[in-house]
């Protein structure tokens, strides 16, 4: 029989994960509205793969499959993978990335609660390194559902009319191709990938992620530290460059609304298992992600930097946590 406390607040890992999934729904809805139903197909693919991989690994490790499958953590990983992968990526990339995330990044490190790296970001990193071209193709304007599903299941691609780069990617390539003459304004004016602030439609998706993130804050599933520090780290790094040379450096607002910035700030970096846990540690960890993201986006070879920045900062988490232990009761003035 258990010891005190004999009463428990209603809380469970499953409830935590379900709330995270619920918080992702507005972002998914806007995403589908702008880019079409490809994402939904990817979500189904990733979810089924994640559950299958989770069940297989639990069986292999001799763990109770029902209890751990029901915790919902694999589904959260699956949805984050679907949201960060291009929605028209071939099915086997989604399946491969998800399987890698669950089997290697999660279970080979000890399963739920033990993984040092964010599983979804590990899956993303492996796939973008292995298949950089496929992982950079986003649906062009007005792609029909049938075409998107066709692309996912193996139709011919590489047509500019069908696929396009993201705003971050287009800006980077645009600036690099004509390093002498190109400007941010010029590149953005010339490509249909751009919208009012960053990528076309991305500002709305970013707003929806923000809404979901605020829900997580309101539910006290996350604290303000990581989202704020990540976005501040990103914007404050972008700011001086943009002020000094607005022709060649994108604005802080472009960075905040482009790519996976808000998804990363509220849903990826806030993964408690792989992230920092102390209040000061969270600030350092998330600001580091923001900073590294800007550098990868601006000078790196990949379209977005959130994944690599998160993984890099994941490595630092034990050290950050160790060095930022908050003072205990009665020892706040260093007694």
């Amino acid at each position, binding site marked *: 029989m258990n010891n*005190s406390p004999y009463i428990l*607040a209603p*809380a*469970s890992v499953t409830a935590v994960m379900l709330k995270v999934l619920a918080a992702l729904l507005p972002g998914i809805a806007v995403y589908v509205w702008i880019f079409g139903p490809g994402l939904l197909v990817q979500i189904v693919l990733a979810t089924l793969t994640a559950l299958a991989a989770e069940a297989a690994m639990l069986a292999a490790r001799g763990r109770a499959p029902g209890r751990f499958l029901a915790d919902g953590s694999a589904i959260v990983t699956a949805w984050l993978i679907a949201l960060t992968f291009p929605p028209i990526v071939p099915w086997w990339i989604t399946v491969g990335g998800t399987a890698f995330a669950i089997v290697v990044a999660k279970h080979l490190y000890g399963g739920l609660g033990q993984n040092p790296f964010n599983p979804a970001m590990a899956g993303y990193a492996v796939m973008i390194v292995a298949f950089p071209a496929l992982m950079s193709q986003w649906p062009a304007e007005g792609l029909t559902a049938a075409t998107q599903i066709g692309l996912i299941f193996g139709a011919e691609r590489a047509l500019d009319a069908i696929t396009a780069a993201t705003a971050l990617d287009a800006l980077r390539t645009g600036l690099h191709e004509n390093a002498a003459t190109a400007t941010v304004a010029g590149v953005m004016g010339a490509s249909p990938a751009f919208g009012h602030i960053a990528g076309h439609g991305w500002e709305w998706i970013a707003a929806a992620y923000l809404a979901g993130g605020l829900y997580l804050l309101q539910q006290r599933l996350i604290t303000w530290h990581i989202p704020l520090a990540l976005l501040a780290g990103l914007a404050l790094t972008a700011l001086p460059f943009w002020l000094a040379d607005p022709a060649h450096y994108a604005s802080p607002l472009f960075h905040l609304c482009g790519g996976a910035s808000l998804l990363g700030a509220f849903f990826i970096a806030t993964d408690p298992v792989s992230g920092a*846990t*102390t209040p000061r540690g969270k600030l350092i960890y998330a600001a580091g992600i923001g900073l590294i993201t800007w550098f990868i986006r601006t000078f790196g070879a990949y379209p977005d930097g959130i994944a690599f920045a998160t993984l890099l900062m994941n490595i630092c988490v034990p050290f950050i946590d160790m060095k930022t*232990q908050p003072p*205990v009761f*009665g020892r706040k003035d260093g007694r």
Partner: protein
Amino acid sequence: MNALRKLFGFHGGVKPAPNKDLSTREPIAQIALPERFVVPLHQSVGGTPRPLVAPGAQVQKGQRIGAADGNVSAAVHAPTSGTVLAVEPRIMAHPSGLAGPAVVIAPDGLDTACERDPFLWRSAKPDEVRDFLRDAGVVGLGGAVFPSHLKLRAGREHPMQTLVINGAECEPFITCDDMLMRERATGIVRGAAIMGELMQPREVLIGIEDNKPQAVAAMRAAVQAAGVRGMEVVVVPTRYPAGGAKQLIRVLTGIEVPHGTRSTDFGVQCFNTGTAYAIWQALEQGMPLISRIVTVAGNVARPRNFEVRIGTPLAQLFEAAQALPDTERYIMGGPMMGFRLPDLAAPVQKATNCLLAGSPALFPPPPPEMPCIRCGDCAKVCPADLQPFELYWFARAHNYGKAQEYSLFDCIECGCCSYVCPSRIPLVDYYRYAKSEIWARERDKASADGARTRYEARLARAERDKLEKAAKLAAKTAAGRQKAEQAMAGGAAAAPGEAAADPKKALIEAAMERARAQREAAQPKNVEGLSAAQQAEISKAEARRELARQMADNKEVPPE
């Protein structure tokens, strides 16, 4: 007045359902005298009191039956008049289920109080008042049962600023302080005033959680009626564990008393309301601590508070409150920090503030434990500002050094972390386990250190003896040689014999003489005047010894 006072928050805390209404509907009831009292001798922090009575002795109500063992201890008294049946170990209300020394008393039903001289505490020296309280058995009734007389002393270097009277009572179900404040506010206020006179603080603050408006009203009225200067009832927000002494001090004064320090070093001291009442009873009514208020609640038909004599069997309280048939466990304390009672034959002690009957519906078994996901909810609610999940990892890994580095011993085991953990990890169990492991290791280390010290001392002794012997021998040798030389010099002319010619020979002879004397002195003792039977026994023993010696020599087994 209260509106002007600035209150401070403390980090963390939780808000479980209070469940306090049911046991406050009826006034405090008296529990009938039981058939047998089992009065534990060890009821407070510190030494176990020495029993002052033997089986067969007649005792009277309030008579001291256990004397404080040193100053860190508190006396124990007979709860009623009657006959002492036994002084023996009895099962105690402790999670271990172990027995402790107790005085078993059969009441005579007369409840005669013993005569006592009035103690004029106002004219007594503070030390005499403290000794009186120790001998009246007054200990902290909030649950820690620390002897109160030890706390009634201002810090040496710090003048007393604030005396805190703790009526917060933050744990769910428990209402004994609430009812005491409602019904006996005057006694509490007078007790607090006495403590104020002993400690001379600048203010006396009575902290009560805002979910006890009736207690607040009663206490305010009593404070006003008593007209004590600097005493004030302060309403604090309801949040568990606001009733922890350190948390309440923090809320009322903003001072954080670190683990391992005395609050008087910060000019603050904190007493429970029940303790204040007990001090008033002891000093003004001449009644030592022989009863207390106990809440009986949970899975019972009639939850309420009882005034219970110390030593009453717990079963009688559950009977009085009518525990329901589906009760599967009995708990002492509240649902956050209480423990399961091993046996209802155990008696009520000074620490017994609440008894809960538990059913699976009331206290459902926890869902299966999941892995920690480091969500940090435990750190958010920890009133000691710890990182409970880090302590959990270290405790699990038996990394006790690291656990101590992360301030394991600052944990007050309030249970907030376990209460909120979404993975349903019994975190406090891990800390209790780690703490007891560390204590066990420290005990082992202390005993190993003791053994080593003893061994080293023995070696040193042996070395010293050897040196002393050598020195003695050298001195003797020198003296003998001198004697021999003198003899040689004296007898050289008279008899130039061989003996005298060799001083060495003289020495050897002297040594042989000494050995002979020693042998003679080492003759068996007590051998005179033995009876024939004794003599026969000795001979038999000698024979056995001889046989054993032969066996040892021959290494042969003698025939059966």
